[in-house]
């Protein structure tokens, strides 16, 4: 059996003639696109008044306290909140499309394109933002991009209202007719990242290794030890820490697999053995895998789908036990809207875990957080109305200087979210891009000036 492991950025990888300053300049930009379904409580009329999503103040003196973003306070200097934008392509365009908001919306968030209503193989949406970036900047890495998810998104056929399930399940589109499958099982992600499935091992060999509970790193430690002897002290320490993180993550996956194979009753009986029943444990495991992959430059682009439309999952850790879909249908009642806000707050509260990891990971002249741009949003606004106005959206990280952060911008009514995404793509290194989805101009993401083309 053979296996490979990607390495973190080491000084030894820089040619001797290059000054250390050149290391900083070489740090690549990373992109993480996260989607959560069902909009937000803060997108409802009451939610807007109570600032349940967007802060009251724009500019730099915003107060996150009443919002579902409050857990991001330690990262406010890395935070760019853009509120009051719409995702019009998720709306119905014809009578037959009315009612299909849950079925088609996920395909829209990062494509900003209106999906073709079909249950057949002739699906059509648009190229997603993550893929536009990956097609330009992801080709130098072992894996151009990866697509991860938390919920079950491998359903076949139609998902209602004449829409194929791929519209519900895929947020990342390599081409308008090519949705990319999402990976739910952390074990698969781990093996993809560290080469086990790609280095000539057969499935039976892999099963044998899993059965023996042996670590991938057990195969690699010997050669890693040889490598460490050739490195300077800083690199040795960095490599040791990195390998320890990889080992730690593999150990956590093994624990989850053992638990799920023990015969104990599972909350998610149909989920693969590598999937933790706990939502937060699953999300954090996926974030740790992403951080390792970004640190080692195995890939620079992730799309991460946290939920699934019409999911009946509950999140007891949020302090509210109601199910997601039902709670999102709050009837416009304040008490129910506040319950829904608890779920939104809980979902966002998992992001700082990832941001902290990125912040603590050295990368070039700064941290991974400095060189990463994380987008979080939903294609739905007020889920009770199934509308796509005032959608929740924020960006964390600076994307290698693409954004300064520390600002809340409130867009003029009717501003397409696509305008913001177009600006982000331009800032990330695609300045020639003139349109994205239904954009009608760029949006000045530093100052909120709206530069519509019309």
């Amino acid at each position: 059996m053979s296996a490979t492991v990607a390495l973190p950025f080491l000084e030894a990888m820089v040619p001797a003639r290059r000054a250390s300053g050149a290391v900083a300049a070489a740090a690549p930009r990373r992109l993480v696109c996260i989607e959560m379904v069902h909009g937000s409580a803060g997108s409802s009329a009451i939610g807007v008044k109570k600032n349940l999503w967007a802060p009251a103040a724009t500019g730099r003196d915003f107060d996150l306290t009443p919002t579902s973003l409050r857990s991001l306070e330690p990262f406010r200097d890395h935070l760019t909140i853009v509120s009051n934008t719409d995702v019009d392509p998720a709306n119905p365009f014809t009578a037959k499309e009315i009612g299909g908001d849950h079925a088609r919306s996920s395909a829209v968030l990062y494509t900003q394109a209106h999906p073709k209503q079909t249950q057949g193989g002739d699906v059509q949406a648009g190229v997603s933002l993550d893929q536009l970036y990956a097609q330009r900047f992801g080709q130098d890495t072992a894996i151009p991009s990866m697509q991860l998810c938390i919920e079950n998104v491998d359903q076949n056929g139609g998902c209602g209202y004449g829409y194929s399930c791929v519209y519900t399940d895929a947020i990342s589109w390599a081409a308008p007719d090519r949705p990319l499958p999402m990976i739910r099982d952390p074990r698969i992600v781990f093996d993809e990242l560290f080469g086990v499935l790609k280095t000539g091992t057969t499935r039976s060999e892999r099963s044998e290794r899993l059965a023996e509970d042996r670590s991938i790193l057990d195969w690699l430690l010997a050669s890693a030890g040889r490598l460490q002897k050739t490195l300077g002290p800083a690199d040795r320490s960095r490599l040791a820490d990195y390998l320890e993180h990889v080992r730690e993550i593999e150990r956590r996956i093994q624990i989850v697999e053992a638990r799920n194979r023990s015969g104990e009753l599972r909350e998610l009986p149909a989920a693969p053995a590598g999937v933790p029943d706990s939502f937060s444990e699953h999300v954090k495991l996926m974030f740790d895998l992403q951080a390792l992959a970004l640190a080692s430059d195995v890939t620079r682009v992730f799309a991460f789908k946290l939920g699934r439309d019409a999911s009946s999952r509950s999140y007891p850790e949020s302090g509210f036990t109601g199910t997601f879909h039902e709670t999102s249908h709050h009837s416009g009642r304040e008490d129910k809207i506040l319950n829904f806000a608890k779920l939104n707050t809980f979902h966002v509260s998992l992001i700082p875990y990832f941001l902290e990891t990125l912040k603590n990971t050295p990368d070039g002249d700064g941290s991974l957080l400095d060189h990463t741009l994380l987008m979080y949003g939903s294609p739905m606004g007020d889920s009770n109305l199934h509308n796509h106005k005032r959608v929740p959206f924020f960006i964390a990280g600076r994307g290698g200087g693409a954004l300064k952060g520390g600002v809340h911008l409130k867009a003029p009514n009717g501003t397409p979210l696509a305008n913001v995404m177009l600006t982000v793509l331009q800032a990330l290194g695609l300045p020639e891009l003139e349109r994205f989805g239904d954009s009608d101009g760029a949006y000045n993401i530093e100052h909120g000036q709206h530069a519509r083309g019309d």
Partner: protein
Amino acid sequence: MTTLKTIVVMVALTAGLSAQHGKGTAETPSLTGTWNMGLEGGHVIPVALVLKQDGDVLGGTISMPTQKIGQTVDVALKGGLANGAFALSGTVEGAKDPTTIEIKGKLNDEGMLEGTVTMSGRGDGHHDMPYTAERLKERK
């Protein structure tokens, strides 16, 4: 099918209809077109309502959700306008018991339809659901 009965809607509108009747004049805009109707039944359920107005005669189709998520059944509607209000009714084809849908409403000052949908079937009594409907900007 019983599922069709538990369907969503029910009508009974009592809104104070104050609009005007007629078609396509400055005072009385035509109702002809596709409307994205939000039925308030616990939460707001999006429903397609397609209308065709000819003078005081109104007809059309409503696509009612069934209990099976993501599936709808089209119900043909007939009715008319009087005193600024409209009323439509239709029967759900294929339902186990006769199921009738009635829609009453008016055009409000914001250009939206508002009123009540009532669904009635044998033994089930009837269910009323208020609604508002926004004209759909149809696009290809």
